[in-house]
């Protein structure tokens, strides 16, 4: 009952005219930018983050969340219709594009839309029951536990996003080191600033995000130079009743999997999609058809995608630790707005918390309204040639960077990170862990120092405290497993090479 009461309270906030407007704008703009080839949710959020600076806190958060799941959805639309995958919609390409080839684009899009709606709804129920509970648990956390939790997040994200633990960890650590630039909080000593005054406050988050994800991505797309032909086929949206019946069970399965995988550290939409898709392949009644354009292949992953996009807010809002790079960006946005997410957020800003939760459902409705009937118009975005789009994106990167501090110098930093990010992309190194490391780095350092201060310089509490001890043990087991796997593989390759 408490939950219902709280949700009603949240809807009171989410349904004000202003917040409805922000939510609608967020969803629409997010979908629009998400549709653009090469721009995934991370790039979209960092591009649009500066837009929210002049908006009141509650509205800004609602709009950002809208941008996030709008971008997520826009991604899957471009994946289904034209097989343009981003990191966040690889799975949607498989069956979704197959359905397009069979002339069932409308059905695929309708399935994705409805499943996303179901997934989102389930996730919001999970979110509104679990987040306050987890918030209570989070009060038990000491600095050492926070450290261990962040380290777990690093390891999981490194592994999940890059597939290679070493590369991911290297990226995370570079991110942490970049986070060290600026004035040291404890001693006030400027670190690594090279005596440049604009580095004294540290490197701007937006500079890194826009550089690595905005500029680097579009430049990479320029290199590829394959112009996508816009989708011109007919779109028949409304499914027949038997088709509709096939959506529901898959979507529900996907929602459950997505909600669960969304909460875990390192989890989030990408992992959830793969999990749901694998589950459909195994448990669906129509599993033989999956891979060749089955409704289930689209429904399950779309539901999981949206569900995970929402439940990944749980660790952020109840513990204050983001579990993937997108959430880290959200954390930064929260902090810019003067809200520190964490166990205290629900108590001290109930209007923000429940308003955001309720707005997620409102955003769900908007997405269905915006996308299912209007999808034809969205697709005309692709008719804009890239040579027009890409200077415009550059322009928005510049404005975005500039508007934070009204400082033109910051654009140099963005340009530098554009170059670095481009090198990373060309070397197949995923920059997402870098962003996570950058945002969590200062928090990690602070908690680490505090924990050492409390224990008078001993490392033992890290191991003996139940929460941090367990997490560290898990990390150790995981790393050991990776090392063994690597050694086994190396032995096999040398064995093959020897004779």
């Amino acid at each position, binding site marked *: 009952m408490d939950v219902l009461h709280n949700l009603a309270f949240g809807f009171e906030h989410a349904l004000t005219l202003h917040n409805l407007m922000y939510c609608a704008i967020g969803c629409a703009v997010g979908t629009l930018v998400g549709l653009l080839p090469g721009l995934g949710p991370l790039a979209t959020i960092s591009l649009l983050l500066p837009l929210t600076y002049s908006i009141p806190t509650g509205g800004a958060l609602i709009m950002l969340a809208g941008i996030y799941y709008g971008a997520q959805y826009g991604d899957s639309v471009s994946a289904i219709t034209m097989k343009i995958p981003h990191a966040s919609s690889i799975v949607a390409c498989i069956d979704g594009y197959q359905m397009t080839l069979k002339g069932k684009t409308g059905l695929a899009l309708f399935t994705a839309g409805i499943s996303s709606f179901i997934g989102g709804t389930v996730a919001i129920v999970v979110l509104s029951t679990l987040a306050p509970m987890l918030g209570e648990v989070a009060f038990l956390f000491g600095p050492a536990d926070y450290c261990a939790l962040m380290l777990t997040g690093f390891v999981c994200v490194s592994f999940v996003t890059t597939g290679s633990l070493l590369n991911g960890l290297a990226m995370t650590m570079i991110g942490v080191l970049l986070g060290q630039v600026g004035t040291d909080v404890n001693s006030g000593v400027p670190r690594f600033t090279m005596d440049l005054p604009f580095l004294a406050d540290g490197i701007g988050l937006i500079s890194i995000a826009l550089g690595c994800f905005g500029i680097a991505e579009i430049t990479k797309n320029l290199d590829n130079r394959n112009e996508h032909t816009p989708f011109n086929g007919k779109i028949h949206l409304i499914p027949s009743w038997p088709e509709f019946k096939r959506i529901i069970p898959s979507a529900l399965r996907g929602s459950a999997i997505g909600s669960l995988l969304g909460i875990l550290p390192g989890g989030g939409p990408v992992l959830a999609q793969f999990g749901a898709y694998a589950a459909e392949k195994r448990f669906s009644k129509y599993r033989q058809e999956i891979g060749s354009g089955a409704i289930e292949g689209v429904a399950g992953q779309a539901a999981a995608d949206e569900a995970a996009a929402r439940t990944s807010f749980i660790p952020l809002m109840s513990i204050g630790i983001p579990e993937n790079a997108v959430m880290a960006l959200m954390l930064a946005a929260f902090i810019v707005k003067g809200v520190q997410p964490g166990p205290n957020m629900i108590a001290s800003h109930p209007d923000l918390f429940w308003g955001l939760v309720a707005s997620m459902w409102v955003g769900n409705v908007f997405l269905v309204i915006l996308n299912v009937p209007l999808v034809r118009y969205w697709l005309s975005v692709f008719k804009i040639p890239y040579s027009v789009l890409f200077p415009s994106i550059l322009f928005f990167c510049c404005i975005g960077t500039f508007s934070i501090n009204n400082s033109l110098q910051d654009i140099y930093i963005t*340009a530098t990170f554009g170059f670095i990010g481009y090198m990373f992309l060309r070397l*197949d190194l995923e920059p997402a862990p870098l962003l996570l490391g950058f945002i969590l780095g200062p928090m990690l350092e602070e908690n680490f120092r505090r924990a050492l201060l409390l224990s008078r310089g001993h490392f033992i509490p890290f191991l003996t405290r139940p929460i941090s001890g367990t997490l560290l043990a898990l990390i150790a087991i995981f790393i050991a497993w990776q090392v063994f796997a690597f050694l086994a593989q190396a032995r096999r390759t040398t064995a093959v090479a020897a004779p």
Partner: protein
Amino acid sequence: MAIALTFGLWSFKYRIGEFSRAGPGLFPLLVSSLLLLVGAFTVVRSRFVKAERIDFNFRNIALVIASLCGFVLLSEHLNMIAGIAFMVFCASFAGTSYSVARNLKISAGLIVIALALQRLLGLNLPLF
């Protein structure tokens, strides 16, 4: 994942590692030594993996960076309208086709957007 890690990249990372030792505080030292460790592991591993050639297209990234820097310089010393026009013209060299008329249109469009941002959202853009 296609492993194409050259020793050059990793030595670059080493330098970051060594560099941070000069800074105050224990934490950067700790992290950079960990990074050093990871870098060393990667070097070891790269002996097992076949090297692959990476193709960089330096022309495009250089053009993009140049247009960004030009935008900053022009906005600083002249005004942002010139900066926008320069950015569009310079960046579109990296595109597949080049057309002066189209660039003029894009620049005009972006300047209008910039004006709208300045007036409506109250961003403090040095347009003039």
